[in-house]
């Protein structure tokens, strides 16, 4: 039998829904989206009336939230696996430089970074003098 799409049939969607085989739904299913969360309204004659077309997310999109969840989960697993691989199985790629040193006192904060083979890098607040740092005197009372 050839399919027919008769424009005189105003309730093609409802007619299809009345088919018992199509109406069986698992008990307790949580529906996605509600009908009142967007601005389109439908009149009895089937005319599409739009108050103000907006581009908000469509609440009824098929499996929208679920598919995004799995996509993000897969992406996170892939990133974690890639990071783990490089950290544990590729020693040559490990970071060999030391962490910066932090010295914090009431007189100020000093950040000292000494990369191997590179130039030392210091960042210190104005309250700390070179002398204090050289002597290791970081007490504010000195």
């Amino acid at each position, binding site marked *: *039998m*050839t*399919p*027919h*799409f*008769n*424009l*005189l*049939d*105003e309730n*093609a*969607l*409802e007619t*299809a*829904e009345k088919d018992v085989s*199509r109406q069986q*739904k698992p008990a307790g*299913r949580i*529906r*996605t*989206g*509600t*009908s009142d969360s*967007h*601005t*389109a*309204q*439908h009149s009895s*004659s*089937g*005319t*599409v*009336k*739009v108050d103000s*077309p907006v*581009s908000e997310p*469509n*609440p*009824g*999109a*098929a*499996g929208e939230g679920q598919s995004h969840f799995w996509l993000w989960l897969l992406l996170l697993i892939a990133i974690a696996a890639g990071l783990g691989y490089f950290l544990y199985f590729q020693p040559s790629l490990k970071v060999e430089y030391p962490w910066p040193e932090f010295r914090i006192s009431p007189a100020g904060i000093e950040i000292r970074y000494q990369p191997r083979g590179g130039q030392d890098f210091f960042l210190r607040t104005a309250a700390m003098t070179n002398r204090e740092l050289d002597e290791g005197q970081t007490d504010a009372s000195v």
Partner: protein
Amino acid sequence: MVGVSFLGNNAMYAQLSYEDATPVIEQIGHLPVTQVPANIESLADPELGSEVNRVFRAISERLSPPDQHFRIAIPSEWLHCYLLTVDSTLETAEKRSFLDWESSQRLGTFASRFTARYYPLGERDESEEVLAILFPGDLPEVFLEAARSARVTVQSLEPDIFVSWNNVPKSFGTRYLIKFTDQTISVSQYKAQRFLGTGLFRYSRRKGLIQYLRGSVDNSRAKAFQTTLKGLLKGEPPKQAPVWIYGNPLPRQIRMLSQSDDHYRLVSPISGWEAAVRSGEGPDRLTECQYAEAIGITRI
């Protein structure tokens, strides 16, 4: 049963009857029309109703035996067709509301002028594919009113691309169905009898330009349709053969290809039937394809 289609400047009609489930074409013919709009923007023309009424009356007078049951193929130039996907677990009211929202997004500020019909195509993985057909104003009422005045009954109004597809032999492969008029080309794609999408193009024969107007496909698919059309007009074999063609007038190169290349096939609404045209001479193949819609809509 009488099938009627509007093809360019002609109203094509075919009268069929069934004898022991065997279809018999009582007669086919065409009438010139003048006030039938060529595009969706001109549908508001108040003359459309009187022109349709005149066509119905003229066809009724020619029918033998008399027949009042008409089926009408609507040109895709008057419609918007979209394929939408909706969560099948929604209630019908919510589903319809969602489909209205999707349709309104596609039509933009013109949405309030359109009427929508939705046809479920099938379900898969809790999602349902729905064919949305949108037309301006109350187009069916124009035809129903014209039919009442002409004392005939309109049983159905259907988009042309779907009724002409009824004439194409069933297949599991990919198929293109292409309709030519003097100003437009419509391309529809099917795979294993499943409708994949359609696109309407403006066509300038003199300049050789093909411009995408609208359709149910995304830009990449529209581009692929356009490439197929350009190749077809250059005589290149299609990548996914065969291509089924009909319309009036057919471009000269298409007429030549359809006679020499097996990749291009004219839609043949009569040849595949155990049917006979009772009155008048049977049409040749080039003429026969012009009746693809008028005969296709009468298929049960």
